[in-house]
């Protein structure tokens, strides 16, 4: 008996390329669902794009970079190191890769200003000194609560990894650090709040994901006069009253640091969130861009940690 199988059609991907002085743009056009499911991993000199299914690539000849195409992936090897940013757009649906040469002139002039013994480390690795002494870092979600998940990346894992890395860096600087969770476990609001109030840190930082491509920073919002007995009885909006101004300053400094590093808009909201309003410490909740839009490789994590370090350093001064 003859059995017919449907022919497997490959999705077409059209590569476009443009170049200007010091920067170039690579655009991949395909069906919207295909674009949305692409996973991009970028390092300093190459970009790997994983596709959800086999694809057919159409591209111009004589490109100033190397293309290595496999069944479900495409690797773009650049000739030299570059700053790489990517984003997805619609109408037509496309993935845009902006590749810019590092600003060598600015780097040189900065190097001249830095004493030779410190030139080994870039300014990014030399944030302002952190004057605060103790921190509680809260990796959002955990255990059965995955938070936002995209593919095999989940909020609970990335926030834990960031919290551990940030904590390790602060410990290296001789600061006291308490992590709300060290492993993949569920912790209630009550326990998170209790730990912060027990440790009485100089800053409390809660790490989460946003559903958008933007950073969102939350500061506590406390009503001047709360007449709400229910909320008062559970200590929401009570402990934070003394620290609101400091929390605001902490969040503003972190926002400034994010803007400086990522050159993107940062949303800022004051909201009476349980983990912010119930703690007796300067507190901030940071949401990082969704993994749908950003690849959380080591480079991205390092940038995020540096941003937080810069923010708390500026706040401490």
């Amino acid at each position, binding site marked *: 008996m003859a059995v017919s199988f449907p022919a497997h059609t490959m999705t077409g991907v059209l590569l476009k390329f443009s170049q200007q002085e010091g920067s170039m743009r690579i655009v991949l056009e395909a069906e919207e669902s295909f674009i949305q499911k692409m996973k991009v991993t970028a390092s300093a000199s190459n970009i790997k794009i994983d596709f959800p299914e086999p694809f057919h690539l159409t591209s111009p000849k004589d490109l100033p970079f190397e293309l290595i195409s496999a069944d479900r992936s495409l690797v773009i090897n650049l000739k030299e190191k570059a700053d790489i940013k990517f984003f997805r757009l619609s109408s037509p649906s496309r993935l845009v890769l902006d590749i810019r040469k590092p600003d060598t002139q600015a780097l040189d002039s900065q190097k001249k200003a830095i004493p030779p013994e410190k030139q080994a480390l870039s300014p990014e690795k030399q944030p302002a000194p952190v004057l605060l002494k103790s921190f509680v870092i809260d990796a*959002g*979600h955990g255990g059965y*609560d995955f*938070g*936002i*998940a995209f593919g095999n990346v989940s909020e609970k894992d990335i926030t834990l990894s960031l919290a551990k890395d940030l904590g390790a860096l602060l410990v290296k600087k001789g600061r006291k650090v308490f992590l709300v969770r060290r492993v993949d476990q569920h912790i*209630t*609001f*009550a326990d998170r709040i209790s730990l912060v109030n027990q440790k009485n840190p100089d800053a409390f930082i809660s790490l*989460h*994901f*946003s*559903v*958008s491509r933007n950073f*969102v920073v*939350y500061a506590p*919002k406390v009503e001047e006069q709360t007449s*709400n007995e*229910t*909320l008062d009885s*559970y200590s*929401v909006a009570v402990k934070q009253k003394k620290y609101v101004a400091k929390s605001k300053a902490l969040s503003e400094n972190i926002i400034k640091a994010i803007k400086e590093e990522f050159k993107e808009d940062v949303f800022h*909201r004051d*909201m*009476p*969130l*349980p983990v912010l309003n119930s703690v007796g410490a300067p507190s901030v*909740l940071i*949401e990082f861009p969704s993994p749908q839009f950003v690849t959380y490789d080591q480079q991205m994590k390092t940038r995020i940690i540096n941003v937080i370090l810069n923010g708390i350093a500026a706040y401490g001064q």
Partner: protein
Amino acid sequence: MNNKKTAGIILLVFLFLAGGAGGYLYFSKVLHRENSTAEGVGSTSKSEDLFSLRMYYPVGTQLQIEERKLPRMIGQMPIAEATVEEYLKGPINSASSHIPKNSKLIGLYKGIDKIVYVNLSDEFRRNFQGDVFAEFLLLKGLYESLISNVEDIQDVKILIEGKEVETLGGHLYLLYPLKDLVSYEYQ
């Protein structure tokens, strides 16, 4: 004689069959007319006896209002149930909403404190995928939908599988009635 007898029998049989057929045609017409009249009455009452629900759905970073027409109901609790059920179906005009999939209303009752207790299935908590603001809008949308459609209620409290849970998505309290939480004015 035999021929006459046979003709008589045939005539009788013919008359009997003709009578039967006539009767069938007559009654089937009458019944059809009655049925179509009854259907007509039904459809008229259906089209006339509708009422509107004003729904507030979380879409993007705001609440989107949609009107829903439903057959008229007697009593406020059936209206409250219909409101929650419509809410869980999600908006018609937008595909991007953070209403958790496959969530079901298990039950709903009003306390003497005029708080409506909405008992939802675990999917409402388990299938929620969103950030702080998405969680806030999800709860605010449900609260606004109930308050604007149901008379004489003061607050809304959510239970999951009949129990109080601390949080829906790990950002906001679900232990308390929603009014104070959702009264926050956002920009």
